[in-house]
């Protein structure tokens, strides 16, 4: 039987041990995206950011690769060097909800059409899609 990535992940998340590890990975990759985005906004290369905040370029690369595990202290003080402050938020762990309104309004061949924006509100920076019906 043909497997899909989404079903496989949903299955694995039933295992609490795997879920914890996945959650840890998600926290790191979320910060990786946040940092890369902040750096891009400032128009800095990884090397330039590194020298601005006083760490090595290799460490910035690890942070933006979701591979470093910085303390909240470290994140806060690093961001302060570029005059930023961390905010955090939570979303559902699994990106594959049981009922997906998305699939109703955004079928897999929907790239052919323009998005029905009046039905869906989504943000590009959110780690998970958000659906808001305004019917």
């Amino acid at each position: 039987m043909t497997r899909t990535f989404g079903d496989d992940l949903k299955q694995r998340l039933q295992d609490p041990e795997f879920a914890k590890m996945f959650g840890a990975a998600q926290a790191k990759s979320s910060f990786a995206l946040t940092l890369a985005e902040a750096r891009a906004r400032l128009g800095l290369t990884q090397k330039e950011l590194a020298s601005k905040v006083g760490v090595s370029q290799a460490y910035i690369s690890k942070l933006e690769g979701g591979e470093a595990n910085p303390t909240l202290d470290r994140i806060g003080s690093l961001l302060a060097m570029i005059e930023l402050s961390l905010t955090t938020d939570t979303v559902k762990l699994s990106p594959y909800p049981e009922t997906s309104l998305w699939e109703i309004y955004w079928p897999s061949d929907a790239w052919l059409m323009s998005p029905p924006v009046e039905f869906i509100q989504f943000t590009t920076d959110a780690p998970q899609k958000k659906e808001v019906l305004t019917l």
Partner: protein
Amino acid sequence: MWHIDYYTEPSGRQPVAEWLDGLDKNVNAHMQDKVVRLQQNGLMLLNTSMMKPIKGYGSDFYELKYSNYRIALYHETASNTFILLHGFKKERKRESREIETAYSRLREYQLRR
């Protein structure tokens, strides 16, 4: 949202699904996380250190990275789909052979389409 597909051989085998099955649980969790980030952010991930293009094989050929583990993949732009072609542990001596494996799967996939 982008679509994620395992590459499926004509025989029905899905090498990346099998590769993920065989990984250490923690490495597996981290690799799956990268794929989810790809699904949510698409090519924006190239601005981070989680993903990079594989050079020398034309466009739309990339790899996701965690530690020394890699998933080589293809971006099918028309369907906004990322096809997971090949998972491997990066070792200097074997790397070009691994990329060749991914690329031959890509050619097979494209011929079938």
